[in-house]
């Protein structure tokens, strides 16, 4: 019953999402397919259930986003009778991820779900895992030299390109017709944020969404830097009408800087969902809108792909999950599709005000 509900729910999400999968291609040029195509028949589920398989999650870091990812994977594991034997957090350190992988391999997992921080430097550790027969399912980042169906089952990822374009569309909503904006981007080599930021900039520069003038463009490497950057930006360019910032936690500093500068009129557009900023949005603060992906859905799909690998079932090489535009009126709905948890009480209160 739960499985049927989830299948219908995932299909529903896929149908309403703004996936621009057709424009995306995987690392080896494989066409992107919507994640809704990943499914197991009743007999395949039965086979997996009877196998008593084990899984490990070798994550890149930890955050509420990773928690939702894990929750999605666990939901699928529970349905399929797969035992989760290990879970690691590499804290964005490739060397630690290599050690983590070696450690979980001692538990002999049949499948490993992972986001590889640096596909080149951890390759030798993953080679051992592949040799040991573990089915690899990758999140977003490829591993150099690896082929789908050979070393790994498939890649599941966000529609990063689509998310960047959606942020530009929200910017056009926040400042109709265009205007003066500031951009605070992630100044580090990180595929997901770089792709989203670049897609946003390209969409803004294309002029399709209005006559925008990017008055200031500043990079940051740590979230704690964005408050100083926003304060300086507003001081130098008081004519700014909106600011784009790479992700939610970094936007907290931007909003604090704008509050301190007494500029409730400057709107902020960002990616991802965080309670602090959603409370700001709910209470009519600086945050105008955000673009949120669906980590729970990613985790669920990755687990199913792991089962594909065990069953030797041909799997899509590159699957993409959708995203949602979050405005004040859709906070509750998007929260559910992103995290699959109840709306935090404080956020509920803020929305009622």
């Amino acid at each position, binding site marked *: 019953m739960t499985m049927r509900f989830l299948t219908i729910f995932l299909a529903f999400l896929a149908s309403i999402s703004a996936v621009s999968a057709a424009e995306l291609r995987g690392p080896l040029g494989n066409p992107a397919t919507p994640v809704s195509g990943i499914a197991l028949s009743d007999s395949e589920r039965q086979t997996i259930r009877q196998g008593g398989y084990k899984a490990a999650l070798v994550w890149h870091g*930890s*955050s*509420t986003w*990773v*928690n939702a990812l894990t929750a999605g994977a666990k939901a699928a594991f529970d349905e399929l009778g797969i035992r989760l034997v290990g879970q690691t957090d590499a804290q964005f350190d490739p060397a630690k991820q290599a050690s983590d992988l070696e450690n979980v391999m001692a538990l002999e997992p049949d499948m490993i779900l992972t986001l590889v921080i640096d596909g080149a430097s951890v390759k030798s550790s993953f080679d051992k895992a592949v040799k040991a027969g573990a089915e690899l399912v990758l999140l977003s980042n490829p591993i150099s030299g690896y082929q789908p169906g050979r070393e790994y089952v498939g890649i599941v990822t966000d529609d990063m390109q689509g998310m960047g374009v959606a942020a530009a569309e929200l910017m056009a909503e926040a400042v109709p017709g265009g205007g003066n904006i500031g951009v605070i981007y992630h*100044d580090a080599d990180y595929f997901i944020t770089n792709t989203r930021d670049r897609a946003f900039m390209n969409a803004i520069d294309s002029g399709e969404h209005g006559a925008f003038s990017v008055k200031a463009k*500043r*990079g*940051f*490497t*740590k*979230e*704690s830097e964005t*408050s*100083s*950057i926003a*304060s*300086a930006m507003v*001081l*130098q360019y008081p004519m700014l009408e909106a600011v784009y910032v790479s992700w939610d*936690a970094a936007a*907290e*500093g931007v909003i*604090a*800087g704008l*509050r*301190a*500068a007494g500029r409730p009129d400057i709107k902020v557009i960002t990616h991802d969902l*965080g*309670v*602090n900023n959603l*409370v*700001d949005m709910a*209470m009519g603060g600086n945050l105008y809108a955000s673009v949120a992906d669906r980590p729970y859905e990613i985790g669920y799909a990755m687990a199913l792909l792991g089962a594909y690998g065990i069953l030797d079932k041909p799997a899509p090489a590159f699957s993409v999950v959708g995203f949602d535009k979050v405005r004040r009126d859709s906070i509750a709905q998007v929260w559910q599709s992103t995290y699959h948890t109840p709306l*935090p*009480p*404080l*956020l509920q*209160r*803020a929305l009622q005000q």
Partner: protein
Amino acid sequence: MLPPEKLNKHAIANAFLRREYFVYYVFILTLLFFTVTLHDVSFFSVTNFMNVIRQTTPVTIMAIGLTFALAGGHIDLSIGAVVALAALVAALLLQMVPVPVAVIGALMVGVAVGLINGLLIEWLKVSSLLITLGTMGVITGVARQLTNLESVPIIEPSFNFVFGSGSFGPVSVLLLWTLGIAALGYLLLRKCRFGRHLLAVGGNEKGARAMGISTIKVRIMALVLASSAAALAGLLYAGRLHGARYTLGEADLLTVIAAVAIGGTSLFGGRASILGAVIGSWLMGLINNGLILSGFSTNEQMIARGVILVVAVAIGVKEQQK
């Protein structure tokens, strides 16, 4: 042999070049440099200086606290982690209890961590570096566990006003916090018996013990002050950001240590300056602000910040050796 008038001139020159004044000269020079180079972007304005104060206050408060620990010959690496834990405790308590109770609860986190650090260091006779490295890990883990990495919003307007977001005209409450805590720190270190005992313990422990000073008690108190200041810094972050998250303060430790060292406090005990710590932290904030306004890229900012720090510390150490 120099004639008396020349000796006098040397004495005056030496007085001006004393180590403890060094941070003020660097601060003034940096201020002048950015004022001239950034004259077209409102660097020298009340609004911008208030920006610097607002961004720097938690670091300043932590620097004042750390000055006490260093004065007694200890270092406290756990202060960054205390910031996050105290902020989260305050944010969670604010959902259940009145503001004063939540504030006291958060500050108690600092007191408790300081006590634990102090007791472990003094009982085990282990380096403060190692003990506080360990407690830093424990507190970071607890802060992450407490809310399962979720941020906790604060919608209590009075808390947000008092602890960071409020202002009286152009004057941010954070400036008042800085001045208040600096004054309190100065009085404790310079005008109270505790401060004199602490400097004596940090400078010459055996001598201090021979004088009848309870070195253990004094050092534990200094660590409690360092942790409590970090807890207060956590409250100030939470008030400014209208919420708390487990990452607060994690990037501050090195900035705080640099600010205190540049300000003239010895990293090995016995010499401390509260005003130096305040100006040292303002200097760090000023450099950060000036570099951003100058339009440097992130990489260039890192290089410039590093070079300025090395030059500042090198000149300071040379002066000390003289």
